[in-house]
């Protein structure tokens, strides 16, 4: 099959819990795979499910339309799946239908974007968006402070602005910078795509003749941001990425403008499948004392730099 | 002179300016109740523009309009309709997607609380159509599927559907065949008998004689004659008022009978059948010969031309100089040109210039490897504009701003720049004024004299008989007679094209 690092998926094996148990059907619904991170989510989920002979994996059409995602989840409920893993386009908007699933006795594992109502999911697993912003803020703040820059020009390129997770990331970033007495000079949003990153960065670089640091929320759009920086022939500043793609890690290793990235790993999808299976089989997590899977699991956001990049490279997802 | 009857309509000093043209330059018009008032003038004289100001479709820049003794301002079509002025426009302005009945009552639908009363609408429409002698047109038919003559009838029905005191007809007979015109006149007489005034525009002087009471003549946007008696004024005088020149013979000299006999056949048609419309028609056109097709509207003449041009599926043999015609491209390549019946829908690019329209099918003449030589193109277009006296003589003017007759000249000019071996002319003088008509006839004859074969369809029998060398009579898609044009007269042909006549 497909091997090599261009296609590796995050899969975890081992432990008693992985021994075949009662058969479970796990329904899976996520936004349309229109960029690397989401694509990795879908692939990880599927790959993880394939590890188990007792899991019947039922993914539904990914879509960016809420109305359609609701229908998709409704159809999974109607098919009486054993558990649901949902990465909603918007947690608030999918809340009602997730609640409907729970009410119908189908445990919901909420992935990434969170449902506002705790009755709507059994377990949430996701990254720490606020924490990502904090990590990026600390990296930038500390470095500039050490350099003794007085009034640094700090730029921020967000992902899709209407997502709550974007707002969380920005909040964490601003809060962390504040501890150094810094603030964001200019902020623009892109669409998580290479091309939008390129366009926004192209214009931002014109607006600021001298930049000290730049945080870009997402390594997928980061490819475009880096291309724009190269085209503008700029290198007076350093950049921090987000999510932790393999490409970003290679750039870090090569030592260019991109110095670090803060992780938000799509491996969470693999974990979500594992948790859904355990919940449906009534098992707990092996390393914990509790008999049941916890109510929420937040992955830590780690900071990858030239110093530790080798260690992370195998975990990076391809853009 | 003092008249007992007050005029119903008085227009005084009407001026209408379009970008670059003063279409009306102080026009006067007086119409009495119960009369048929004819408006004459060359193409582009301003007739349609004048009646559009009367219909509220154009706002005049200067001048006054008095209707039934009251000075009125016609701010829009509704204002005119409310006063009792209804109009049959020159360009058939119908909605193709609506039914006949819906078109007739458009804007004053039969409805209760906004809900249409379909039954009433259809009944009323059927009644109007019956009154016009066309009970066979179903009110529920979609107008887009009707032939031009059918659309003209619907336009008339629409005008009659209003309570009118004055009805304006802008070339209503242009799309009609002989017998249809008689029918139209019957209606006009009924109207005038009831005291309705009719403003009648036509380029056919014989119609004016038959139906008109008085004549107003326009020339270059001005009134040049008012209230001439329609029957008494000599033709020569009318023509000279309109055109500013004297004209004796409208039709050019014809070569002697039989003078084409030995010449090669340009076109040979054998057993032509267009399913449902044309059945087993055979004929030929020789070099230098003008062959006319006479027949009723709907008899299939246009289909014969289209089939010869490769534009319509058919069976049978069609050969140009011995080579089979397969589709339009091959027809054009072999040297056939078609001037189609409906110029607006089938021939013209309304957004383009006069020159662009004239050279459309001859672009290959001015290009090498696709590259256009615009100087030569323009020069050729200009030459044809002068040749046909097309007005205004500005090749860069958008063709949509030209009067109908001048647009028709541009359609012909297209096949004059791109010389043909065979010309198919479908109603080539529809809407063309007397002076221009004579010019066109001369051009057509000259082309024939140069060796071109011409196949001519016209609903005006005098035109077919006066211009063609040989005439083919078509009835219900079959060729029922063929002979030298000089051996025929209108009555005989009429007998033949109507059903039940002796052969």
């Amino acid at each position, binding site marked *: 099959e497909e091997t090599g690092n261009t296609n590796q998926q995050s899969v975890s094996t081992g432990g008693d819990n992985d021994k075949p148990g009662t058969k479970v059907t796990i329904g899976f619904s996520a936004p349309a795979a229109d960029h690397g991170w989401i694509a990795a989510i879908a692939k990880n989920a599927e790959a993880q499910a394939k590890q188990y002979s007792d899991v019947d994996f039922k993914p539904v059409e990914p879509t960016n339309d809420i109305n359609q995602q609701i229908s998709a989840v409704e*159809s999974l409920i109607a098919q009486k799946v054993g558990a649901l893993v949902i990465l909603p386009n918007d947690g608030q908007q*999918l*809340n009602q239908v997730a609640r409907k699933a729970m009410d119908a006795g189908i445990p919901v594992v909420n992935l990434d974007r969170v449902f506002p109502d705790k009755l709507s999911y059994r377990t949430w697993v996701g990254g720490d968006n606020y924490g990502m912003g904090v990590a990026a803020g600390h990296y930038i703040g500390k470095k500039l402070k050490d350099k003794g820059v007085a009034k640094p020009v700090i730029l921020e390129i967000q992902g899709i602005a209407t997502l709550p997770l974007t707002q969380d990331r920005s909040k964490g970033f601003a809060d962390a910078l504040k501890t150094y007495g810094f603030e964001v000079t200019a902020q623009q949003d892109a669409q998580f795509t290479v091309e939008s990153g390129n366009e926004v960065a192209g214009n931002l670089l014109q607006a600021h003749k001298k930049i000290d640091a730049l945080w870009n929320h997402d390594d997928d759009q980061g490819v475009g941001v880096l291309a724009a920086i190269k085209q503008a022939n700029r290198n007076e500043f350093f950049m921090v990425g987000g999510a932790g793609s393999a490409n970003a890690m290679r750039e870090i290793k090569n030592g260019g403008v991109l110095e670090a990235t803060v992780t938000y790993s799509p491996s969470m999808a693999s974990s979500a499948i594992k948790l859904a299976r355990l919940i449906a089989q009534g098992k707990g997590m092996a390393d914990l004392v509790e008999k049941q899977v916890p109510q929420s699991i937040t992955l830590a956001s780690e900071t990858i730099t030239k110093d530790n990049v080798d260690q992370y490279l195998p975990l990076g997802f391809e853009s | 002179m003092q008249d007992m009857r007050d005029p119903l309509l008085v227009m005084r000093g009407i001026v209408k300016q379009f970008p670059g043209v003063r279409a009306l330059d102080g026009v006067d018009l007086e119409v009495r109740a119960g009369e048929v008032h004819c408006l004459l003038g060359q193409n582009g004289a301003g007739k349609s523009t004048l009646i559009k100001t009367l219909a509220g479709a154009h706002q005049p820049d200067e001048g006054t309009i008095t209707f039934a003794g009251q000075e009125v301002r016609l701010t829009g*079509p509704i204002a005119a309709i409310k006063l009792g002025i209804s109009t049959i426009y020159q360009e058939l302005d119908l909605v193709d997607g609506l039914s006949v009945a819906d078109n007739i009552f458009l804007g004053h639908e039969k409805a209760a609380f906004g809900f249409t009363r379909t039954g009433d609408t259809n009944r009323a429409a059927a009644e109007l159509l019956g009154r016009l002698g066309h009970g*066979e047109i179903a009110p529920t038919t979609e107008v887009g599927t009707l032939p031009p003559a059918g659309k003209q009838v619907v336009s008339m029905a629409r005008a009659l559907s209003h309570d009118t005191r004055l009805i304006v007809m802008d070339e209503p007979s242009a799309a009609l065949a002989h017998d249809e015109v008689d029918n139209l006149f019957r209606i006009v007489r009924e109207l005038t008998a009831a005291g309705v005034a009719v403003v009648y525009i036509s380029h056919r002087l014989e119609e004016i004689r038959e139906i008109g009471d008085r004549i107003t003549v326009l020339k270059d946007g001005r009134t040049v004659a008012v209230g001439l008696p329609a029957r008494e004024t000599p033709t020569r005088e009318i023509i000279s008022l309109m055109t500013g020149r004297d004209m004796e013979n409208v039709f050019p000299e014809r070569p002697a009978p039989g003078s084409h006999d030995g010449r090669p056949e340009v076109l040979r048609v054998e057993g032509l059948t267009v399913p449902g419309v044309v059945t087993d028609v055979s004929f030929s056109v020789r070099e230098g010969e003008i062959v006319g097709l006479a027949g009723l509207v709907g008899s299939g003449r246009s289909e014969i031309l289209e089939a010869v041009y490769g534009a319509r599926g058919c069976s049978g043999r069609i050969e140009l100089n011995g080579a089979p015609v397969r589709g339009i491209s091959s027809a054009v390549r072999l040297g056939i040109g078609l001037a189609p019946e409906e110029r607006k829908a089938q021939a013209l690019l309304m957004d383009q210039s006069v020159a662009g329209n004239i050279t459309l099918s001859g672009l290959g003449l001015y290009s090498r490897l696709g590259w256009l030589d615009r100087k030569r193109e323009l020069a050729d277009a200009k030459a044809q504009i002068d040749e046909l006296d097309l007005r205004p003589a500005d090749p860069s003017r958008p063709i949509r701003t030209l009067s109908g007759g001048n647009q028709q000249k541009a359609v012909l000019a297209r096949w004059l720049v791109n010389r043909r071996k065979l010309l198919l002319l479908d109603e080539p003088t529809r809407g063309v004024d007397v002076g221009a008509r004579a010019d066109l006839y001369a051009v057509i004859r000259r082309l024939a004299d140069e060796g071109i074969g011409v196949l001519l369809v016209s609903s005006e029998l005098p035109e077919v008989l006066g211009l063609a060398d040989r005439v083919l009579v078509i009835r219900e898609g079959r060729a029922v007679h063929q002979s030298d044009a000089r051996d025929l007269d209108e009555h005989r042909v009429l007998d033949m094209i109507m059903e039940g006549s002796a052969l």
Partner: protein
Amino acid sequence: MNDTRTLSAEPAGKAPAPASSRSVRGLGGARHLGLVAALVLLAIVGLVTQPDNFATSSNLVSVLALAATIGVITVGMTFVIIGGGIDLSVGAIMALASVWATTVATQSYGPVVMALCAILVGAGAGALNGFLISYGRMVPFIATLAMMVAAGGLAQRMSDRRTQLVRPENDAIMALSTTKVLGLPLLVYIFAAVVAAGWVLLNRTTFGRRTFAVGGNPEAARLAGIDVRRHTMLLYTLSGVCCGIAAILIMARTTTGSSTHGNLYELDAIAAVIIGGTLLTGGRGTIIGSILGLLIFTVITNLFILNGLNTSDQLIAKGLIIVAAVLLQRRSLRSSS
């Protein structure tokens, strides 16, 4: 003698049985046969591939509920397109209406005011479209594009780019999606009512006749004494009202108002209308065709969901199905005429 003169275009000779032809025509008849055939084919595919899931009542309800929101918008879009225009702003207007109706201030007046607010916002935005087009003489494409962009921006601004939850005390709104009558959620009835009202308006009123005229030949309509500008205003306002109603439905389904609602709905709605046989140039079209077009799209999506195909293959298949449906449609038209 006069009888032989015939100016009617009915190719003489075949007079179809008058009784049946009338009723068939009433619903648009033969011209929808292809669409119906495509739907039937899709249903067969559904039955074969998903015997247990496709034909269940819950699945059919789900299809209808999914179709309802865009369906309502499609009705308005059909009018606009028949009237010779186009409305690119429908999705954005729906989003704006949903945001406006879920602001704290509006929500404090309760669900009825929320619904009214959504409809009014839709009507207002639609009227502004209509004004720019008819009195400002802007090209519909550009005017509604400007509205799409601006209304989207305004929706983001009003909501501060956050999703606004319908508050629990206003759960009457959500009830439209959760309360069922005869097994169907209320919003399906609303959808049906809008379609029925649209059909009557288009086919049985002077407004409908004039819509065809304004779209088919605006100059002829003007000469017939129709106030073309006013009518155009009304058409876009109508489309805006439909967006307002759709906003209520999307609030019911998602329990939220958001600037992200309705993204790309304009394309879906226009596509449904055009697949349904309405001419993009105006003057011709049917409501039923549009709804059939929409249902085809919705059923395709549903089939994909049920079969769990991967997205890329779905998209490829969708493209092929669209082409097939249209060719089928033409085939049926040709053979029926």
